[in-house]
């Protein structure tokens, strides 16, 4: 598919059909993607975009590697761990320059630092980057006596006080909870010096090698779309809602999108959206070597290509 994308310069750019696989169910965090699609930003870059949903069972790394989707959104951790297992995916841009993961407790429980987890019931999302950051914090604070229970991707046990501490996306569940009037105390890994990359945009080594122009066009469109959505919040969110079967609520997703923006513009502001640095990738890798059994010999440099910076 999309062989037409390799047309030479000079001719009018033909439209290439391309799909991208999200990391999760459609939500306000993805407002930029839908806005870019609906505003014709991807079209302008010669791309007819299909946005596919992810979910807890749907691994975007696998689907991109298998060629089902040309591009995808995945955690930086997944890229490194996948490459260590021989999965030939590469990051071609970053979305969340800080980890979106945080650890929440109800305000009244007085959980201020990881040290307060001692003796508490904590939801652990086994096998995810959330577990990595959790282990790192537990190690750093040498916390004992935590009662770990499995995370259910659902907030009800937390709200019902079946657990004291849960894991959440800073811009997603936290916003949802706060809008429901639940006061939270939030712990992030970053405030304790552990700061890996969050979600990144990926493709395969093969695509990168064979269709570099398409990849460049795509990333340009991604960055432009995010910028546009940051500037036109309410219209962007309406695009999101209308394109997802009117299931999402504009007010909630608008708040989510607003909470997402700081993660996009960290490390250099709106000018540097999508641009990655070797230092941050190395930092990410170190954490994974320590807490996710990442093979230390993994070549981090090969895991990402700074399409945007190269422009």
């Amino acid at each position: 598919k999309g062989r037409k994308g390799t047309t030479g310069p000079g001719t009018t750019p033909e439209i290439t059909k391309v799909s991208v696989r999200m990391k999760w169910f459609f939500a306000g965090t993805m407002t930029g993607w839908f806005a870019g699609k609906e505003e014709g930003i991807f079209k302008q870059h010669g791309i007819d975009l299909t946005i596919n949903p992810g979910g807890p069972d749907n691994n975007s790394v696998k689907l991109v590697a298998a060629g089902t989707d040309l591009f995808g959104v995945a955690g930086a951790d997944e890229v490194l761990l996948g490459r260590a297992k021989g999965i030939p995916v590469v990051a071609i841009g970053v979305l969340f320059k800080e980890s979106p993961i945080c650890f929440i407790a109800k305000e009244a429980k007085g959980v201020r630092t990881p040290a307060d987890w001692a003796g508490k019931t904590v939801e652990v999302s086994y096998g995810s980057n959330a577990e990595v950051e959790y282990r790192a914090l537990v190690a750093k604070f040498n916390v004992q006596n935590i009662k770990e229970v499995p995370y259910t991707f659902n907030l009800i046990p937390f709200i019902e006080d079946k657990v004291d501490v849960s894991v959440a996306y800073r811009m997603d569940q936290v916003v949802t909870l706060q809008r429901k009037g639940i006061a939270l105390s939030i712990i992030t890994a970053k405030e304790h010096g552990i700061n890996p990359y969050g979600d990144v945009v990926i493709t395969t080594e093969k695509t990168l090698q064979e269709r570099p122009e398409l990849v460049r066009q795509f990333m340009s469109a991604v960055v432009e779309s995010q910028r546009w959505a940051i500037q036109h919040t309410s219209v962007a969110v309406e695009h999101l809602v209308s394109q997802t079967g009117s299931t999402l609520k504009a007010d909630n997703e608008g708040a989510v999108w607003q909470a997402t923006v700081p993660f996009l513009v960290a490390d250099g502001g709106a000018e540097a959206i999508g641009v990655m640095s070797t230092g941050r990738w190395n930092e990410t890798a170190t954490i994974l070597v320590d807490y996710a059994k990442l093979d230390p010999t993994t070549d981090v440099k090969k895991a990402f290509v700074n399409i945007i910076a190269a422009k």
Partner: protein
Amino acid sequence: MRRVLPAVAFIVLVLAVWEGVVKLFHVPEYLLPAPSIVLHRLVGMNSVLLAHTSITAMESALGFALGTVFGILLAVAFVHSRTMEMGVYPYAIALKTVPIVAIAPLLIVWFGNGILPKVIVSAIISFFPVVVNTTKGLRNVDAEAFDLFDSMSASRRQVFFKLRVPSSLPYLFAALRISSTLAVIGAIVGEFSGADRGLGFFIMISSHRLETVDMFVGILLSSLLGILFFYSVALIERLVIPWGRGKIGEAG
């Protein structure tokens, strides 16, 4: 009228108790919304829900049809060849026991993003009862009737269509009742892992957003869909096996 009265009475009872419990113990809405609220919401968002429901209905119907056809074919093969049965049955069970959620990405890789993977999940989940019951039914032939056909030296084909098939219908329809609801489940489970429409998608998003009322609306609709499928099968059964109606207890 007489036939639906008990069902209506029962639901009214259940809803009343539910409503009462919610009101009495101040159960928060995000945990368990009162039925009055759920129904009110349901009425208020007709068109969106209709779209989701009809997609799921279509996936379920296709999956049910596919699963049934495949299940019947497999049962027929089993009845015709013991070797086939010995060889394949364990793998039909194995296929059935594979956690769909685990192979969802594979299904998307193989069958794309449209409704096909959902239809296939629905078919996989619903084919198994058909295999088991139909195999049993096709075997559960009256020995004397079999002798009758044998004495006429009926071909296997004839024994099959004129004796085994009619004998197996009560079993087949019991299976279809089971499968019809499984097919709905299958479609919804299929939608949980990677869909951008359908009731499964709606339920997932609502659950994720703590829109518990919406989630209950979605659950309610999927249950209604299951009930609709079930009673459609029951209705067809009445038309197809009129002679079975004389059985004891069907009337009383």
